[in-house]
């Protein structure tokens, strides 16, 4: 597993283009962390890649109009998924009939 740190201007679609360079190669994206970091944004990816893919990804990321920097780090330990944070998102979507201000709706959307 290798970490990649990509800085980019947060224009429409730039993050998706960065991720697409990975997904189009049928690579898994076990960890993606995007955040605002002055003056740009940064996304950190952890990927299982071959050396050839590293070169291809670097060049493809730099070809995206608003990518400003790409770096790779040393091999990382597996990403820890924050189960507590993720849990509410794993619940089913509330049906449309559930009003947001009902107790049931509030519970589901909590």
């Amino acid at each position: 597993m290798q970490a990649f740190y990509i800085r980019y201007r947060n224009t429409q679609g730039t993050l998706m283009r960065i991720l697409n360079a990975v997904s189009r190669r049928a690579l898994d994206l076990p960890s993606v962390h995007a955040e605002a970091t002055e003056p740009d944004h940064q996304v950190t990816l952890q990927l299982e890649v071959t050396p050839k893919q590293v070169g291809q990804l670097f060049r493809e990321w730099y070809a995206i109009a608003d990518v400003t920097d790409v770096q790779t780090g040393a091999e990382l330990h597996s990403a820890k998924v924050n189960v507590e944070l993720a849990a509410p998102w794993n619940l089913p979507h509330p049906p449309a009939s559930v009003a947001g201000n009902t107790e049931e709706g509030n519970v589901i959307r909590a």
Partner: protein
Amino acid sequence: MEIKGADIVLQCLRAEGVDLVFGYPGGAIMPLYDALEGSGVRHILTRHEQGAIFAAEGYARVTGKAGVAIATSGPGATNLVTGIADAKMDSVPLVCITGQVRSALIGTDAFQETDVFGVTLSLTKWSRIVRSIDEIADVIAEGFYWARSGRPGPVVIDIPTDMLKAKKEFSGAVKFVPRARPEKAEKHAANGNGNAAGKPNRFDSIVAMLQKAQRPVALVGAGAKLSGAIPELRRLLDDLNVPSFATVHGLGAVPPQAPHYLGMVGMHGTRAANMALHETDLLLVFGARLDDRVTGDPSRFAPFAKIVHFEIDPAQLDRVRACEIPVVGDLAETIPAFHKAMRNAGSSLPDWNEWRDVACGAERAELDPRGLAQPTIRFLDELFSRLPQNSVVIADVGQHQMWAAQRYRSSSPRGFITSGGLGAMGFALPAAVGVQLAQPETCVLCVSGDGGFQMNIQELATVHRLGLPVKMVIVDNKYLGMVRQWQQLFYQRNYAETDLSDNPDFVEIAKAYKIPARRLNEDAMREFPVSQGTGDLIDGFLHSRGPELLVFDCAPEANVFPMVPAGASLSEMVFEEE
């Protein structure tokens, strides 16, 4: 004075030099159509959005300018997708303007709402959803910049219908100035690997490699013509005096009569070109991405060669095979710079006479031992030999495309146009519309198969409406010929779903569109030379004043040879059915 967003769009198009657009109206884009009259932008109504985008591509490919395609939201926008992918693969500057449902409805699965921004994200070079009328001018200026800059490509600008209707004070179109990127990113973009490249010392290394090389060759792709570097490339090749060959998109970059030019390389390339590429010890690549149709089995591609790769887009490097020296930059700059370095090196290059004799020898010159006897090839030879100078041939996708690429010998860099990377059937007829509109005085010949022609056959109506003198040929073998060829060679003749023997009568269909049409049977090609009557028929077809269709009925099981089977090395060409 306040003007509508639609008027701003059109004024910005004019400011970008656009006077011709291709499209198809619909609900969300209606305000733009409402504003067309008197805008100075001529709109060409095709009969399908795919026809519009292929026509815009044809216009862009033959002129080098950005093509513009317009469609409405939802199905209109999704019908553009194949053309967008085609433009991405073949580096065509293209700006697509799509209407979108009004802003308040975005994300609600409204009628004819599609996330065209998301759908096309992986196919575009750049795209935007306009979020405010204030953004329109900036977005259009930036879109055209990215479509044209570097390696050209497609751009999508999605405009909600309320933005087109809204009004604002407009002070005029703007010019986009790209924001500077950090030095490291610029350096990366400039050389592709973060190391020194495109620098004088790198050129010295290439010269040193040339001086040691025993079997150098040059492979020419589309990059030189896209960069407008054809004269520079030809001068360099004249001085290098090495065997050269071209990809399907590089055809015409080197004059076919140039000494030591070996024709097309790759899956259906010439024996001479493929053998030279297999045997070379130094491969100079000019503006080609080396895709699988050119390389064959990548692990056995140019196995003895070091590769020097001149390329504008670093992302194209090392996709299939790593190169020893990347020279990243606009070929209009890097080729002359390298040429100068080569001349300044002082010592002369080796004499590669022996290698040239081998690579260009008579025993390798024959395209296909049986080829000249094939009626379809004879027909194409007759057709092409009677074309006026500087004609443009647009080929669709399939067997006829490869035959045309093998046989059409154009010295014009933009004289042969086809969907090479994506291989999109149905490309040729609408693309020919765009080419003919761009060059009204040029003889435009559209060569299609019976399968591909039916994929955009509705554009006959566009040809008729505009009175375009496009000459259309259908090579009708009543099969999806290339797929059938593979089924014959690699699937034990299991012709699954490739039989088109119940094709409609194309002559009658053309006549229904009020386009004259005639038919020629391949038996007419068994005489050599062809009879006076056949010659007159072909001449009459090519030189008629208006549009015309010629259906060439050919044998259903004719095959394209030579052929490098998928997964084989370029040296393992097949010349006939086993």
